[in-house]
């Protein structure tokens, strides 16, 4: 065999070996590994992490739920072991809102709503990315949508002091409205006037 052929073989052989290994990995991934819904599993892990990263000590948090009778938000206290990081706390508070009122107030978010992602920027803007299920089963309307949005915003401001404003996204995108009425293109600052002060 000539020297030139040896050289060619030396170059080609490693390429062939690496290619075969890559092909083997690809084949295993495509045909043998069960399809993993990466997005869903990542969200589940984040939710789990938020719930498990609690500081241990249970403390009373105030959640605001819509009262359509009054057109206001009703405060509801419940014990919650809040996480150490602000992002995890935000997720915990929103998940508690999704869980719903225990005193018969309205539901701000649909029961199947998922929090896809939470970001808290240095200027105190909390970005909440909901799944589209957050809108399913929601009764549209100016009052109902306004109360739903401020239920989230005021609950976060009450329990996570670092949150100054809230921006709501759906499926990772900015959307025009929650369900045809309330403008979601801007971010929201907490509005304490939405909270009912008198006894029901």
């Amino acid at each position: 065999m000539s020297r030139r052929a040896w050289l060619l073989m030396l170059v080609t052989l490693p390429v062939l070996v690496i290619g075969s290994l890559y092909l083997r990995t690809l084949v295993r991934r495509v045909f043998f590994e069960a399809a993993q819904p990466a997005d869903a599993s990542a969200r589940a892990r984040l939710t789990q992490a938020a719930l498990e990263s609690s500081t241990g000590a249970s403390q009373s948090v105030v959640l605001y739920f819509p009262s359509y009778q009054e057109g206001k938000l009703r405060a509801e206290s419940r014990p919650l072991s809040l996480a150490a990081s602000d992002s995890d706390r935000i997720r915990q508070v929103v998940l508690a809102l999704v869980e719903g009122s225990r005193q018969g107030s309205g539901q701000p978010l649909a029961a199947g709503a998922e929090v896809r992602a939470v970001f808290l920027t240095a200027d105190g803007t909390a970005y909440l990315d909901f799944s589209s299920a957050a809108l399913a089963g929601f009764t549209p309307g100016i009052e109902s949508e306004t109360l739903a949005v401020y239920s989230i915003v005021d609950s976060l401001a009450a329990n996570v002091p670092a949150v100054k404003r809230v921006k709501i996204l759906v499926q990772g995108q900015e959307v025009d409205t929650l369900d045809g009425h309330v403008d979601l293109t801007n971010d929201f600052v907490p509005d304490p006037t939405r909270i009912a002060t008198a006894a029901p």
Partner: protein
Amino acid sequence: MSLSSEPGRPVSSRRHGRRFLCLGLALSLIIIIWPAHQLRSDNFVVYLPNAHQVIPLESIDRVQYLPLVPLLNLVGTVSGIEEKGNSMKVWLGSNQLELHRGDKKVRINRAALKLSNPVRVSNGQWMAPLDFIDSALPRLTNQRLEYRPGDQRIFIGDVRPTTFFVTRAPLPNGTRLTFHFSDAVTIHTTSSNGRWIVGLGGRPVEPLEQGLKLNDASVSEVRFDDQDGVPKIIITPVDGSLNFYPTVEDQGKQFQADIVQPITAASQTPPGPAPASASSSRPGPTAGAGGAPVSAPAPPPLPAVVLDAGHGGPDPGARSRDGLAEKDLVVQIVERVRNTIAATNQYRVILTRNGDADPTFDERDSTANLAHPVAFLSFHAGNLGERSPRVMVYTYQASAPPDAGADAQQMFVPWAWAQAPHLDQSRQLAGAIAQQMSRISDLSTGNPDQAPVRQLRSVSAPAVAIEVGSLSPELDAGVLATPDFQQQIAAAIVQALAAFRGGA
């Protein structure tokens, strides 16, 4: 140093250089002036029952051609294609079509037919001249075809297009165009590049005239266009400063557009509430005490009130337990409010949507802003708890108010902040409406509230949203759908407008 004085360069070389330069210039000119093989592209619209298709037209040597196979697929089912060299056979149902490249003759079931221009092949597609549609197509299908030679649209099957004609009447300060439609159409207006575009909804439309060049002091051209499959009328004003006041009449069968000079600052001062017995101040020649015509300029058009019925089309909004959709309920209410306002002869009423259209938020706001209204009222229905019937009035709640000082310096107001300068007036209007609503017996209402209502954000006028309820899956619509209740709402709004205009 000039070329001719270059030392040591032979004279013949210089001559050759000049010749090449001239030849290059001539070639460049020829390339620029030579007509392109494909001059321009238009679209051909095929209207089918409940659908339309847009097929690109090709202009080859100044003759318009259609791609043959996509067209045949729309009129029937192409069961086979056989392409051999310069010829092609197509089977459409039981019929056979035979064509030859560069040949005017085509054969349908072996019977020859001569087209005005030869069949071509462009980018691998067989192309037939436009007259193929009226000469050959009816022999290939049993479907009903409606085609006017020369048009760029065809109606296939059970499609009855709406037609329209336009009349023009002079106004003292402009021109009135009235479009008369054979059927009710859903109209929404927008502006683009200084022209007004009147969308005619999804119905197929066949104009009597494609376009009209007008010798008019206000309007230069009125043109119909459906090149994207969406019928629309494009009105080109003579001057970009003219105002456009659209009105839909006769349940959508008539559309009136007043193109008038802008209202002067003096006439923009809001008039006080007119006495109930006052006659309409509708534009037109005014009469003096003795009834003789007065030559003084006529007053500006009546102030406009824009009514916005929320949702529409595929977006029903909220729904009651007995199935009444928000989009339908608010149309009923808007219709009553419109008639009640119109009966006062003090306002022009402009609707942001007609019928079951679903204009975008910005299209609705554009319609409103074009009319420079004295009030914008957006109607909604939703979950207001168990206290039904209930009405709530909202003004826009901005998340962070813009810097008022900075705005005063700005020549243009950002679209997203158009409502901000009008918020004080909007609150006055909301207060007036809430006050009148509180006088309706058995109706629960509250103080005007503010909410981040998307529809109000970009309205450059006093604007409120009125939500009636409760319309939710837990309750029947009940009294909300009754004419009596809706008429009470309408009457309250007219009273509120009078109070607002009187106090504004």
